[in-house]
Every structure is written in C-alpha cells, then in structure tokens.
C-alpha cells in the first residue's frame, strides 16, 4: 500500500480507524476488541479455516455473517462481534470441533464461554481440528515444509513427511507449541516411531556440553490469550 487510506468503521459501537487492506479482525485487535480465533496466527497469512471469528456485519442496510480474519474493512460498515446469532454459530462450531478434540484446553474454554455441549456430536477422535497452523507455520515461517495436508474433504489430515522431518523437526518443534490440541506433537512422534526410529537428527554434541534437555512440550492447559 503506497498511500494509507484511512477507513472508519464501527465495531461493537466504537468508531475504529483502520487502513485499507486490513481485515476486520486486525482492526478489532488493534482497537483491543477480542474476537475468538483458532486458525489465526499473526505471523501467517489469513486462512479462514476455523470460522470461529465469524462476526455480524451490517453494510448498506444488509446484515450478513462474515469470517473476520479474511473480510477486508470497508467504509461505514457496522460490525458486531457478539450477537445471539453469532454466539449460536460459534457454539455449534465449538461443538463440532469437540467431536474431534474434546479435551483441547482452548476448546474447553470456548465451550464454557458459548455454552457448547462437548458431547453433542458423535466422537470422531482424530485429535486434529485441521486448523493448519502447523502446516502453514512450517511453510511460511520456517520454510521447511516438514508437515503437510493429505487427502481431502472429511478425510483430510496433517502428515509429517519423514524424509524432511527426520532432519528438521527435533531441532525446531515450534509447531508443537502453536497446535491447539497437541496433535502436531503426537503426529510427529508417531511418524518418527514408524518411519525413522532412532534416526532423527539431534544437535551436534561436544564432549563438554551437557546432554540437551528433552524439549517435548508437556501437555498442559494453554494460558488464555489476550
């Protein structure tokens, strides 16, 4: 953006100034207004995968429901981050995700906030909610592409590529911390156990250096963000 065109919009009754090209989510976050997200990460391109950041937008008299992480700001739109219908949408989304990862700390917190029933849908404990954070982080930030999506539709899942993971993952493990369900870590360890047991590349040790401490992150509740 060469010129910074200023756009004024309303979010939850507040007048917010934003620049052209920003998304509604970015504008809200800049103003300190919280919108729940799962697949969003500030270092990554917007993905629009989890749909949890759905908000109500009123533009030219029409009300619609949009995904705020990919919806660009526009002049004079009125955004509501909470409404009966928005809350209902988020509740059902959380319930659907909980069929896959019933014990993910972030989902438990959201379930409390939106009154979601974790047992509403039949369990399909894949433990992955396909938010794509690990895949996109490895591609965009680390540029290693050690983990990718495979298959399609309801069968889509993440998969570590053994040929790459063997040399890259143990030294990095950064996707383990951003994964909302601990599945990235589990998927990596399973891949290692099946495809290259005992062959991972570890940091080169000198004789004086102490044994590197085990870096696998223990599974514990994630502190609530914002």
């Amino acid at each position: 953006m060469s010129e910074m065109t200023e756009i004024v919009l309303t979010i939850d009754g507040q007048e917010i100034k934003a620049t052209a090209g920003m998304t509604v989510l970015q504008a809200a976050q800049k103003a300190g207004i919280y919108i729940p997200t799962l697949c969003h990460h500030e270092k990554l391109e917007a993905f629009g995968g989890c749909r949890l950041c759905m908000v109500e937008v009123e533009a030219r008299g029409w009300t619609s429901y949009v995904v705020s992480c990919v919806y660009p700001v526009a002049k004079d739109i009125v955004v509501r981050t909470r409404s009966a219908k928005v809350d209902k949408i988020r509740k059902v989304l959380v319930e659907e995700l909980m069929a896959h990862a019933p014990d993910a700390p972030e989902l438990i917190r959201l379930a409390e906030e939106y009154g979601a029933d974790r047992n509403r849908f039949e369990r399909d404990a894949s433990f992955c909610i396909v938010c794509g954070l690990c895949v996109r982080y490895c591609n965009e930030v680390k540029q290693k592409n050690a983990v990718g999506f495979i298959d399609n539709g309801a069968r889509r899942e993440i998969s570590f590529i053994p040929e790459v993971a063997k040399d890259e993952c143990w030294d990095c493990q950064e996707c383990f911390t951003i994964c909302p369900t601990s599945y990235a870590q589990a998927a990596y360890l399973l891949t290692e156990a099946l495809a290259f047991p005992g062959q991972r590349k570890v940091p080169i040790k000198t004789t004086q250096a102490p044994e590197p401490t085990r870096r696998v992150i223990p599974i514990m509740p994630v502190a609530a963000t914002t």
Partner: protein
Amino acid sequence: MSEQTIDGIIEKYRGQPNSLIHALVEIQHENHWLPRDVMHKVAAALQVPFAQVMQIASFYKAFSLTPKGRHEVHVCTGMTCHLRGAAKLRAKVEELTGLKDGETDADSRFTYETGACLGSCSIGPELIVDGKHYGRMTPEKIEDVLKQYE
C-alpha cells in the same frame, strides 16, 4: 512407462511450480500410478516442496499412490446399471480376475474398481476397460472382452 519417459515429462516442466498438476497428470497417465521416488523427482525439478506434491497427489482421486495394473476395469454401479444387473457383472469380473473392488492383480494386468455413475445409463449395464465403454454387458460376454487386454 519407462523411466526415461517419466524423466522426459519432468524435464518438460522443470522450474515451473505452477505446472505441478500437469506434470502429475501426465505421469499418472503414462505410469498409472505415482511412486514416491518419482514425486521426489517432481518436487526437486519443479521447485515445489515435497509436502505440497503429496498434498496434491493425495487430494485428487485421479492420482494413485499405489501401483495400478496396465488395464483399468470399471463396472458401473449407478442406479440404472444396478437395476439392469450390474451385480451379476461384478460377480463375474471378480470371479474372472480374482480381484475385489480397488485391487490390482500380482501381474499388474488389471485394476478393478466400481464406480457410480459412469455416465452411460442408456447403454447399461456397462463395463469400461481403459476408457472404452462396453454397453449392454452380460456376464457371458465379459470373458471375451477381458481377453483382448493383456
């Protein structure tokens, strides 16, 4: 389906990440499946991460990640073919080839798959071998059809 043919296809698209699907389609057509080492070659030549090649190859049903036979035998199980006796065709094909749905024989001669709808309801029940449609099929005629494919 020699190695040179595959290498030729890969060379044609060298340095063109956007042509990933084209390259894979051509290799699939030539080789009937995508071996992992071939996908590694594609990734290296087209400068695409291997994870992305895997993503594309596993996303589309047109690609096969397991070996396929020289000839693809399809029996339509769509509603029309079903009513016109597709089940008997399936039983006969399974008896003749010894294969179940989705399997390939040890000599890589046939891969047998069912599908619905294969789009020729007016001539059902139908058997399709390598894209050639055999309409108004009867179990008795199948053996003669399959004999033509070695």
